[in-house]
């Protein structure tokens, strides 16, 4: 009997290092691969991931486990696919989540294809998420045991073709347990602190990155209220996020919030707290994890951002591959470009990208009574 072969996507971090160690203990033939992703020229050392230092740690972990280790260069693909997705999203007036594109196109495509070419049966990552597989049935994707670390939101993009080869060894563990395993095995640990920043921003604000790469997006425009009254000037729509209160530069009796962005007129729409919130959204290009769209509406819990709490909703699949989501209670920060991910009893059934027109349901007629 030859051992099943698994490629572990390593990063030099504690999670993927422990994932590799656990799979080895479970009897797999383990091979380490590490993606070299794009970073801005000159900022390679301050990138959040795949710095030369992180690569050295990953190599040491692989050496300690006695597994082969290969650096896989995906810089060009990452720039063309993921960074471009990020820039295009902002250019379209949205707030994109490039980690979704990275997982779908880079980690679970570019890297997976190399793992399979190498003869691997599986590919594993240090993501906190659980799978169940039964002969003859679709692989099912569940939230991690450790709710603080759960990464199922970004992995809703995986289809059966990818999940068939996926292993997530950390889904049943908590972060403290993972740290303890790393300490017990004396695995070299990354020094970098935990961060949810995008890896290619080199520790800076995304606005600085956009300023360098797409300065034309910083087009000043009007700040208006729901009635269309001009209240001030904004410095470019990319500088604002929905629900934002501070930094609007407008004196008002009550605090003003960003309600939405009107990309067609380059206007920032603001209003009072009670105007915030929306009970509906349309999510597009849905990936149904099982591979088949449900035939009818279903009750679900929906996450509208990576860090959002799940909220009760009714999800209605549409024939065009989108889905309508009706929340029980309004959500304050529905943001086009982010993903809406649907959970049923902790299982990820699908998700898609929040469409633009739904974010701001500003029908002037509805809000005329708002004091200007």
């Amino acid at each position: 009997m030859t051992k099943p072969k698994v490629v572990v996507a390593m990063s030099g971090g504690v999670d993927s290092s422990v994932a590799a160690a656990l799979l080895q203990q479970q009897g797999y033939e383990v091979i380490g691969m590490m993606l070299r992703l794009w970073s801005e020229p000159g900022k390679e050392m301050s990138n959040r991931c795949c710095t030369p230092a992180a690569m050295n740690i990953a190599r040491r972990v692989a050496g300690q486990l006695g597994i082969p280790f290969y650096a896989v260069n995906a810089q060009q693909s990452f720039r063309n696919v993921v960074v471009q997705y990020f820039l295009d999203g902002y250019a379209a007036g949205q707030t994109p989540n490039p980690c979704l594109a990275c997982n779908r196109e880079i980690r679970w495509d570019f890297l997976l294809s190399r793992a399979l070419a190498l003869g691997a049966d599986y590919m594993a990552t240090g993501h906190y998420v659980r799978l169940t597989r039964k002969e003859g049935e679709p692989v099912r994707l569940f939230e991690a045991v450790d709710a603080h670390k759960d990464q199922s939101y970004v992995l809703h993009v995986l289809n059966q073709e990818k999940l068939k080869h996926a292993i997530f060894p950390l889904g049943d563990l908590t972060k403290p347990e993972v740290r303890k395993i790393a300490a017990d095995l004396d695995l070299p640990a990354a020094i970098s602190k935990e961060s949810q920043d995008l890896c290619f921003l080199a520790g800076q604000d995304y606005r600085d990155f956009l300023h360098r790469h797409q300065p034309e997006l910083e087009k000043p425009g009007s700040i208006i209220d729901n009635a269309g009254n001009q209240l001030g000037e904004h410095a470019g729509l990319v500088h604002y996020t929905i629900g934002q209160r501070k930094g609007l530069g407008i004196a008002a009796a009550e605090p003003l919030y960003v309600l939405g962005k009107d990309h067609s007129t380059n206007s920032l729409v603001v209003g009072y707290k009670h105007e915030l919130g929306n009970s509906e959204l349309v999510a597009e290009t849905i990936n149904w994890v099982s591979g088949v769209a449900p035939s009818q509406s279903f009750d679900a819990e929906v996450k509208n951002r990576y860090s959002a709490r799940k909220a009760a909703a009714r999800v209605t699949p549409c024939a065009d591959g989108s889905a309508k989501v009706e929340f029980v209670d309004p959500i304050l920060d529905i943001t086009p470009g982010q993903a809406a991910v649907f959970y049923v009893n902790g299982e990820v059934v699908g998700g898609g990208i929040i469409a633009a027109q739904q974010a701001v349901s500003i029908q002037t007629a509805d809000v005329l009574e708002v004091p200007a």
Partner: protein
Amino acid sequence: MSGSKPIYLDYAATTPLDPRVLEAMQPYFGADFGNPSSVHGFGQRAETALEDARQRMADLLNAKPEEIIFTSGGTESDNLALGGAAMAARQKRGANHILMSPVEHHAISKTAEQLASHFGFELELLPVDELGMVQPEEVSKRIRPETALASIILGNNEIGTINPIEEIAAICRERGVALHSDAVQSGAYLRLDVQKLGVDLLSIGAHKFYGPKGVGALYVRSGTPLLPMQTGGSHEFGLRAGTPNVAYIVGMATAFEIAQTEIEQRAGKLSKLRDKVIEGVLKSIPDTKLSGHRHLRLANHASFVFKGVDGNALLMLLDNAGFACSSGSACKTGDPEPSDVLLAMGFSRDWALGSLRVTLGIHTTNEDIESFLTTLPKLLARVRSLEIA
């Protein structure tokens, strides 16, 4: 590969230490540990070993002992040759122009680029033909009275091509310009007779011919102006400061003796295996070209380009299948850019990204090559289905 022993086909990257060399080195880690500069007996024994090694190196190179400078390896030799000769030529006769081939090892090309960007030298690249060879008449055309030195690699690390150094040296000599040649890859496969080659400066590194890593030598023809690049004590005729690495220098001399005496026997055997690799690969894999010269190449060196292939992915698949090869330049961190050498030879990016170097050595067997030739076409078919980074 499960279970079977990996096959090493990367002797141009480095070679295993010859056990005879290790044995020769041993005393200088133990009883004869002295500093060759010391007055006492410990020092004297070390100095004897050092000067004996220098004499042996000189004999093999057909040089005088005082023309041999020990260094920390090929890269340092290249740095000293280029920086030292350029600076000295400028000081002595105002020469400010460096002539270099576009297929040099980075130890030369990056050093020359720094001399240009930070020290005000004018760097001119010679053309090469599609086999990566420098034509002597091109040197003739470009050499000027203010040329400080020319640097042209002997046997190329990436593509194996051997340059016509003797003819080029004759031109340089006639025009009064020093010629340096990087012979780091050539130590085990070419007779390095500096009189015959006609060079003024020649770099070698021990670990390419079954000696230890971290030691090399620079031949400097008497009368060639050279400014030391590493300053300090008056070691190595005042040209390279630092306590000599006696054990390693003894190891290099022993390794070089073995390599140069056994050259015909080794090169004869290896060139047959090399030709088998070249013919086998070209025959069995579509859209493949040999890179470098078919015959005027290092005896152990075969190199290819494959159209539409991610060279790094190919190396990974080869390693996993039990074959240790290289793409021609050290890129284990996954440098995405195609090699300057291949681009200079006129290969398009689409070809240059898919490079493979197969270099043989004393432990390579006919069975190894047969097994390699059976496996490679299968891996190529697989790697061609992958998106290129």
